[in-house]
């Protein structure tokens, strides 16, 4: 190890460098960016470089703005978008029309450009977001082409000729600062840096907000995200809207900068270039976008200036560089790492004290027989298999209720039907006195899983479904997000009330991680932890939504006896806080020792229900597990099971 460390490869040294840079506070990173960016106009001013290179810099900035936006769509929310140029075009045309046709100045056209491009994002997003990602690729590609062709055929903007004489941001142009005359491109460059800063700060704020975590959650596991309270469709839609807004900003800037635009500037090639730059840079990483933009614009230009005779070679070389970068560094040049060393440092002690005094209804006085969950006549069919067959049961407030049964008995399907993950085909579910169906005329619409979470029912999964590339505390914060109140625009500006909301969510996360005994590893990635701990994170994530009913799907699976004991204590502790618990479990020692009542499913039917002692002696249950007495094989094969039941 020591020897290896003393000869760091170029690659490892590079990663270490990026990591050190990523660890700097955000404002310091911004200062570094501004310092590096200012080299370009300064070097032109002192004659080291020419206006040509400054204009390349302006192109880099335009691509950086685009990259920041597409990074939201692809990097954060995980939606493949191959038609991103459409939003860029819409922004550019908005500015062109407003300035040239309607006579407004450039600055007044920025907000409409952003707004209209964002609206276009919603229009594209709404009908298409239920599609799988590969299909989304072609639909977005088609959208990009449609928008371009529409501009080509739009007579108002002169069709393929486009709009000319788009004014510069200021009059007189180029302006002078403190008596120094700027060159044309330097002035655009300075404005561009300002707009890129806006784009970076906005994207950074979003990535750390509730919305940002929800995007990541959807990217990592859409299904689990919905089940812990994330409204998936709305979250994805917001990604498209935000992505569109960033492109609108870039488009406005681009239109003013090139002063004449036409539809041929907004082809699929442009969309592909932006996608390439965010992936080369490192998906999800803002620094990566800047690096990627520099490479994607810079490499072809370097080739052009190095080999002036072979103009056509530049994209050939670009393609080769692109492929090589991907082969040797598929995660990108500046990959994004989501873990954090000490997530809870800096939380104010004052809140901490309040937290300690937090009151729970310990051992709530529940009237025996008051149901919190009432399932009646639930049936569910998969093709020819009747997985759940006319099941009815009630769970009482404050109890620990177990559902057991052989494999394939329909236990998880019952959970899925109750939480709305599976659309209920027949039967009713009443939770906390209210039906979990929305009724309209004679139709019934089961509540979506995230709405069920909001009503106070949380769940975990049979196979662990954590958000893998997110830190542990962030996983739990996603669970807490149902109770956050801030709006996307507040997240964008990182407003005081949003900060308070964030701090509260962070506190919740800390509280529940402490509750399951994992506060110490809060900053690690979820996948870096051992199996039993991952299960406990799932429990903490579910509890963070402050449910009154918790559904645990085989929580003890794969745990050793000590871990099982911990788990049982934890479940009891949860119940003490006034939460009713329903669990599916195979381990009879767990079930029999902590349950107040047990229900047994076999082949979709409820065959027994009652106190553990009754279940253990129920002849139908023994039959379901062991077969009939005549069937001697089964009995001899598993002699231990009878004793365990």
């Amino acid at each position, binding site marked *: 190890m020591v020897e290896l460390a003393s000869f760091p490869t170029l690659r490892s040294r590079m990663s270490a460098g990026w990591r050190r840079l990523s660890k700097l506070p955000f404002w310091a990173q911004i200062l570094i960016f501004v310092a590096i960016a200012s080299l370009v106009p300064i070097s032109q001013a002192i004659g080291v470089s020419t206006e040509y290179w400054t204009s390349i810099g302006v192109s880099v900035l335009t691509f950086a703005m685009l990259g920041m936006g597409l990074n939201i769509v692809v990097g954060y929310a995980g939606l*493949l978008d191959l038609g991103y140029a459409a939003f860029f075009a819409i922004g550019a045309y908005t500015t062109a029309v407003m300035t040239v046709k309607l006579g407004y100045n450039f600055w007044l056209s920025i907000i409409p450009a952003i707004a209209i491009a964002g609206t276009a994002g919603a229009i594209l997003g709404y*009908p*298409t977001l*239920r*599609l*799988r990602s*590969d*299909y989304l*690729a*072609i*639909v977005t*590609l*088609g*959208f990009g*082409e*449609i928008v371009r*062709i*529409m501009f*080509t*055929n739009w007579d108002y903007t002169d069709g393929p000729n486009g709009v000319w004489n788009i004014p510069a941001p200021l009059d007189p142009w180029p302006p002078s600062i403190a008596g120094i005359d700027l060159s044309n491109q330097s002035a655009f460059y300075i404005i561009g840096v300002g707009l890129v800063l806006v784009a970076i700060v906005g994207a950074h704020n979003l990535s750390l907000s509730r919305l940002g975590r929800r995007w990541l959650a959807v990217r990592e596991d859409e*299904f689990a995200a919905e089940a812990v309270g994330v409204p998936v469709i709305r979250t994805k839609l917001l990604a498209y809207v935000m992505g569109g807004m960033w492109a609108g900003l870039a488009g406005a800037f681009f239109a003013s900068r090139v002063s004449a635009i036409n539809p041929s500037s907004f082809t*699929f090639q442009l969309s*592909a270039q932006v*996608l*390439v730059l965010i*992936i*080369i840079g490192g*998906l999800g990483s803002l620094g990566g976008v800047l690096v990627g933009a520099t490479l994607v614009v810079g490499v072809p230009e370097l080739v052009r200036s190095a080999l002036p005779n*072979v103009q*056509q*070679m530049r*994209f*050939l070389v*670009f*393609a*080769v560089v*692109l*492929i090589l970068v*991907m*082969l040797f560094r*598929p*995660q990108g040049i500046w990959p994004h790492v989501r873990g954090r060393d000490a997530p809870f440092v800096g939380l104010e002690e004052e809140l901490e004290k309040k937290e300690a005094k937090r009151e729970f209804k310990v051992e709530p006085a529940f009237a025996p027989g008051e149901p919190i969950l009432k399932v009646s006549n639930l049936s569910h069919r998969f093709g020819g298999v009747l997985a759940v067959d006319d099941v009815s049961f009630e769970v009482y407030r404050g109890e620990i209720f177990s559902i057991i049964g052989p494999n394939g008995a329909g236990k*998880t399907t019952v959970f*899925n039907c109750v939480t709305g*993950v599976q659309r209920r085909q027949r039967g009713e579910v009443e939770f906390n006195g209210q039906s979990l169906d929305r009724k309209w005329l004679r139709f019934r619409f089961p509540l979506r899983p995230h709405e069920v979470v909001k009503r106070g029912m949380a769940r975990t*999964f*049979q*196979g662990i479904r954590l958000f893998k590339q997110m830190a542990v505390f962030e996983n739990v914060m996603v669970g807490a997000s149902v109770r956050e109140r801030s709006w996307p625009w507040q997240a964008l500006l990182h407003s005081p009330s949003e900060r308070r909301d964030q701090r509260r969510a962070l506190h919740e996360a800390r509280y529940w991680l402490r509750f399951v005994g994992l506060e110490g590893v809060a900053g690690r990635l979820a996948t870096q932890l051992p199996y039993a701990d991952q299960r406990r994170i799932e429990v903490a994530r579910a509890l963070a939504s402050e449910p009154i009913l918790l559904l645990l799907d085989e929580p003890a699976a794969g745990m050793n006896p000590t871990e099982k004991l911990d788990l049982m204590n934890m479940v009891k502790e949860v119940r003490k806080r006034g939460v009713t618990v329903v669990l599916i479990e195979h381990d009879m020692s767990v079930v029999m020792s902590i349950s107040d009542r047990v229900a047994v499913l076999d082949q979709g039917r409820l065959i027994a229900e009652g106190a553990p002692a009754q279940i253990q002696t129920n002849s139908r249950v023994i039959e379901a597990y062991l077969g009939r007495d005549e069937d001697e094989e089964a009995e001899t094969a598993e002699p231990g099971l009878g004793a365990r039941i």
Partner: protein
Amino acid sequence: MSYFIQYTINGLTAGAFYALVALGYTIVYGIVRLINFAHGDLTMVGAFAGWTILVTFGLGRLPVALAIAIAVAIAMVVTSVINVGILNFAYRPLFNKSLLAILITALGMSVLLQNAALNIFGATIQPYPHLLGSAGVDFGNVRASYTQIVFFSISCALMVALYSFTQFTTIGVAMRALAMDHDAARLMGINVDRVIAVAFVLGAILAAAAGVMIGLYYTQIDFFLGFLVGLRAFTSAVLGGIGNIPGAMAGGLLIGLLESYCAGYLSGRWQDVFVFGVLITVLIVKPTGLFGERVAERM
């Protein structure tokens, strides 16, 4: 009415080409879940390979059928070699790593092929030799040229051959098994790497056939041809349900017809808008495409 029939004939011919290219997208997608962006450009490479044989090497003076057969055969070899090369160099090292990274290398390969052709053959349109006249069968005002009839038949024959290959040969069955479950297929003793390579060769063969036929039919080609054909073919594959072989064939013919009707009855300017509009509508109503199956997910 005669217009309608004429548009149908033209649409089916173009649609058959799209279907051939779409099959390449669909086979590869079915097996490795990769949208092979370079596939459209492979068609362009096939067209240029055929062009080189017919024009540069002057084989155009041989009897027509023989000349075309040789051109197609050589184009097939060239595209197969290139496609397997791309697979081994640009995609295989990234399998099991990141699908997005492969998508980017595929985009890179597309740019690479286009610009390689641009550098070798130039940016101008290259005329394909007029080996096939415009003679044909006339029914009143409607004409089905012999070229259309022959090319449509060849395309159909190739599609049937491919379909039979996947249904009745061992390696075809292995291919379908692989599409369903990589690990299970590997455990059953299937040589996964070889089957993937075969899929890429099959795609390349069909692309080369389509490329040469497109060249002969439209009588001109340029380096950008692959992108345009590829876009429509990819659309066809998705419309039919990507991963589904009969779906890609039906999707290709459908896209060809839609395009032809739109150009005939409405306007050529709105052709692409119309085609993508139909695609988006179909996907909204049936998110897996016309013939695609729902992919089950265990919870």
